[in-house]
């Protein structure tokens, strides 16, 4: 396996971990928001942080999967659409899992390891 391929797999694996964390964080934040556990502006700030964090994950997975620049930007934009962002993140995570499994990685619930 070449160093480039290893780097791409590493990117995809790291991006997938971030994406899975973001999915879980989004569910937790939505639940907390419904319970009105914190003031609205705090939730808005936290949602923005999760969105930016998910951007990093999206870009890393896309780079690992060898996606074009346009697709990267498209997925980055989709990360800001409520509900659509979850679908996009799950889609990217599934594709990353398939790629990593084929490369011999072990993929678990919270990400992959070599």
């Amino acid at each position, binding site marked *: 396996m070449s160093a480039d391929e290893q780097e791409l797999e590493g990117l995809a694996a790291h991006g997938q971990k971030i994406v899975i964390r973001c999915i879980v964080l989004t569910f937790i934040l939505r639940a907390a928001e419904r319970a009105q556990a914190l003031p609205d502006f705090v939730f808005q700030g936290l949602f923005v942080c999760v*969105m930016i964090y998910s951007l990093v994950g999206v870009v890393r997975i896309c780079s690992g999967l060898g996606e074009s*620049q346009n697709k990267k930007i498209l997925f980055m*934009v989709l*990360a800001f659409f409520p509900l659509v962002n979850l679908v996009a993140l799950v889609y990217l995570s599934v594709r990353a899992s398939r790629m990593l499994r084929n490369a011999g990685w072990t993929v678990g619930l919270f990400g992959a390891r070599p």
Partner: protein
Amino acid sequence: MILLALQLLFAPVAASIAGVALWALYRHERMEDGQLVRTFVFFAVMVGMALYAAISSDSVRRRIDPQFRMISEIDAHPLYDTFQRLSPDEAKLLEELLTKEMSRGATLSEAMLRARAWLTAAGNHRIGFTDQTTRLNWGRVAVDSLKELRSRDTLLCQQMISGQKVDTQSLPQAFTEKNTAAFHSALIAVYEAADKGMRHELPREQAADFNATALEFRSIKAGLEREFGADIASFISSRERQDWPAAEERLCSARIAQLEAMLTRPKATAALLIDSALR
């Protein structure tokens, strides 16, 4: 509704515009991941701020937010402005009346006309605190308004006189623009003068003799009895009116005749008579 949709879609819209900008500016380059994210976040924040500034501005809000447009129109009306300055509680009631009508599709002018009975009652309630000139002007506008009502709808005229529930939907067609403008201007004058009166800032005027005014009142009532009959004269001259059983032009004409007769008396007497008849 549109404003709510914009608020919900604020982040997606900002991100979409930022995405398009990023693609347009860097479509021939292959950026490192970190730079890509930084540039995207930078554009998204810029577009978000620009969008926020745009939808927060009054001119844009007036276009996209019907509620805000209504409130802005109402705020700019000189009559509402006077209410807000001099009687905030009544201004709140007036705003509720107007927004209720405007949310049903009426324009501000139509809503003001539908609130005419309420506005008339508000003006009548305050004339006791005003000076004689303002009271007489208010009386003249009342006469002109009743004449216009009589020529268009006898039932509406009767409803306005007897204090029955007025058919507000018919009111916009009942008054001319000239009469409406005169009514608003007279009502503003009543509120301004009443405010000064309540603060004892009005110049002292020659007061009418109470007994002589009472005699004038009886003489006007006698004239009404001769012309329109005792039942109508008592109904018009009484403060505690019960519902008049039928729509009659006589009732309207009698009220107009009564107010016109009062207005022909000397200023101080006429002002006291108008006050007692309208309040």
